[in-house]
């Protein structure tokens, strides 16, 4: 089976003043379609940077990122934007819902940006799956953290992305809400075959994945390839 995501000798170097700071130092990973992969590692090891680079939010300094056969490192900013729109769904630790919009409009926004038009069937399936049908008219400020994260997940998957990239999705949640969100991600993976890459600090959360990648100092030190 061809990997949905593959990186080869991936480097990302940030320049701070006159000093080069390498955040990724030659990362090689493969993720197969339908996999649920967790990434663990200490703060500053490059987990979030890797998520940004493989999701097309940031440009790699060198190396290759192949997402569904497209090499992100050779793409223009506009092409990476297009790729994010059609193939990537992001879930963030701080939910990042638009505060001026209710849950319904936050989710529909993704479809609007994709410009495919509103798909009511897909919307209903996603809203029911995530159990947010009764909260659609509520704004983020009127919802609990767990509910906000479920809306954020709905927004990430409503356009059927090839891969969902979740950056510490339970980092701002209590234990009960964390468990609910992790169960949801696991069921999305199991029932819909959604490929998920999740960053977490929590070993219990990481255990929801099929595989755990361990990072340290900008390198993947364990779990990089499928066994």
């Amino acid at each position, binding site marked *: 089976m061809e990997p949905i995501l593959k990186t080869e000798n991936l480097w990302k170097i940030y320049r701070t003043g006159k000093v080069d700071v390498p955040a990724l130092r030659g990362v090689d990973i493969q993720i197969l379609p339908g996999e649920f992969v967790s990434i663990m590692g200490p703060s500053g090891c490059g987990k979030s940077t890797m998520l*940004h680079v493989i999701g097309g939010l940031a440009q790699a300094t060198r190396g290759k990122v192949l997402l569904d056969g497209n090499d992100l490192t050779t793409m223009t900013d506009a092409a990476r934007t297009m790729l*994010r729109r059609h193939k990537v769904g992001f879930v963030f630790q701080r939910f*990042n819902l*638009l505060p001026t*919009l209710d849950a319904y409009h936050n989710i529909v926004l993704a479809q609007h*940006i994709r410009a495919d038009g509103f798909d009511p069937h897909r919307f209903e399936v996603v809203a029911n799956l995530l159990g947010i049908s009764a909260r659609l008219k509520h704004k983020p400020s009127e919802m609990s953290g767990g509910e906000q994260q479920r809306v954020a997940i709905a927004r990430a998957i409503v356009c059927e992305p090839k891969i969902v990239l979740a950056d510490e999705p339970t980092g701002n949640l209590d234990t009960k809400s964390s468990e609910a969100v992790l169960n949801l991600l696991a069921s999305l993976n199991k029932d819909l075959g959604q490929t998920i890459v999740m960053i977490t600090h929590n070993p219990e959360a990481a255990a929801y994945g099929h595989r755990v990648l361990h990072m340290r100092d900008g390198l993947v030190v364990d779990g990089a390839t499928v066994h």
Partner: protein
Amino acid sequence: MISHNVLHRPLRTFITVLAVAVEVTLVIIVVGLTSGLLLESAKRTEGVGADIMVQPPSASVFMAFGGAPMPIAIADKLRQLEYVQAVAPVLVQFNSVNGLDIVYGIDPETFRAVSGGFVFHSGHDLQAPNDILIDDVYSRSKKVKVDQTLHILEHDFHVAGIVEHGKGARLFVLMPTLQEMAGARDKASIFYVKCDRPDHTPAVADEIRDLLPKYEVRPLKDFLTLMTSSNLPGLAAFINVMIGIAVAIGFLVIFLSMYTTIIERTREIGVLKSLGASKSYIVQIVLSETTLLCIAGVVGGVGLSYLMRAIFIRLFPSLTILITPGWIARAGLIAILGGLLGASYPAWMASRKDPVEALSYE
């Protein structure tokens, strides 16, 4: 999303809309005031009832800005021309005390022959040297009545009568009195010429041009079309400057409003980018919000303009403020374009934000 964003900060939205409304009001009122004054002045000149107006060489169509007066004896030469029924010499003076007014020095008999005479609301015609006639608009706005003393042009006049407005000026005195005061004995600023039939006007105008080459000979039929801001030196520039100031207000307020909005929504822009929003999509959102604010401002500005006009006219009854659909449309367009220009840099700035930096913005 755009309407939600606009309503998210109601005070900022209100201030922005108010600024655009003030911009639109400024344009409409300034233009309306100048156009209104010109139109009103033109209508009064037409209201004299003459067919032709003769002025000195290079005289302005705006008689208050006229040049040197002409010998009054010219009137006799004009009367001898074929098809000429009557000629009324008028000396014009500009009064700037208690407002801006044109004063006509007239000979009652010849002025009556051309204009058909005044319609009196009260009082009587000019008789004594210090008599003055005022029109009903002036009487109302200055609260002046018959038999009161009116101090203008450094002179005390006795208000002899109040006449219906629309006969050239709002104030009329005897010509010898005004000539004496102006040091222009036997001089006149304008000759109003009445033809025996209106269709003889072109022929009479040609005769006058032959008789008085270089003099300004203007058929009054076309007078309204000549009374535009472009014919008054400096007025068009004044209007343009006022429009420029109004646009600058709108531009700066919109710029500041959208700039702070973009800074405040940095994180949201990062979210939109993570969802795959293109640069043009983000620019479109910012400019759409601006357009919505400007449209609200234009609507408010038009309403405010009518309100201001009502207040001005109540306070100063002699004022005419002309609000035309054409200038409402132009003021609206100016406000929207100025607003879009003001929002273009914030929109460009938003579209170029780095998504990773934007998402980590606190």
